[in-house]
């Protein structure tokens, strides 16, 4: 059990690191791209550009969460 916990902790540290929001942002951007691709309304060029913009927007939101004023 201890080994499994350490193993899980290692992979969490490795992939998620000290900011889980980045990993979530990347996953959400790719899920959005997946959904648009499945809707079959855009060609490859538009899809790739949409994917790039989605990653940027998700990253900007995660940064905004980081720097938001904290309530006392």
């Amino acid at each position: 059990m201890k080994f499994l916990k350490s193993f899980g902790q290692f992979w969490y540290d490795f992939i998620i690191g000290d900011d889980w929001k980045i990993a979530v942002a990347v996953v959400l951007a790719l899920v959005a791209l997946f959904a648009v691709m499945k809707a079959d309304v855009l060609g490859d060029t538009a899809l790739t550009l949409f994917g790039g913009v989605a990653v940027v927007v998700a990253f900007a939101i995660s940064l905004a969460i980081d720097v938001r004023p904290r309530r006392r």
Partner: protein
Amino acid sequence: MDAATWGLIIATFVACFVEMVEATTIVMAMGYTRSWKSALVGTLAALGALAVVTVFAGYALANWLPESALQLAIGGLLLIFGLQWLRKAILRSSGRKAVHDEAAIYKEEVAAAKAAGQSTGSIDMFSFMVSFKGVFLEGMEVVFIVITFGLNADNIPGASAGALAAVVVVLIVAIVLRRPLSMINENLLKYGVGLLLASFGTYWAVEGIGIFRGDRESLDWPGHDLAILGLLVAWLVLSRIFVAVLKTPAAPAVQENVAVEVEK
């Protein structure tokens, strides 16, 4: 050698250099305060484990996965690593995060080493485990970067040469100086590597989503590989905009309400 090979070697050299500086700080702290023998055994064990992981992961990735799945998995990981480094660089440049300081990290590691109880066996398990974990964790990122850049450029030896050169340079500098490598502008290096990883990561992860299409073919960026250059410029410009927008005002009354992180 052509320009692409030099670019590959330089990219893996810089990425590996940054990780090696961090790992070396940890090992030096353990060696000087507790046991050089245990710290070095831990380092060698981690390097051995990394070699095994590299061989297996490289073989599995190159032979078992369809190209688009490989792009999605590797691109996703590179994107996460790259954006994490970029986030830190942006927050540091805008004054919202403490600047990475190897000397401060060294002091923290030394304090932790002194606080831990003395070991009775021939191997000091504290030094061994801290060194092993430090080298293995930092090394895993290098392994992924070397494998992915190497596979994409179809030049694993070139990517490995860049990483190996960084290991040698950092080790020589550490042995000559015999102190933490705090004079290196690691923040600037990390910013550069973050931009590279974010650009390649965006390119591959978006391409790899094609694995979920009926034909499992990768999406095609306009301009193909040239799009990576466009992404690099886009991430550079965006990061500078983020820094300018997030720059903290000097007034302390305002700073009190702003989230400022302090970390290693």
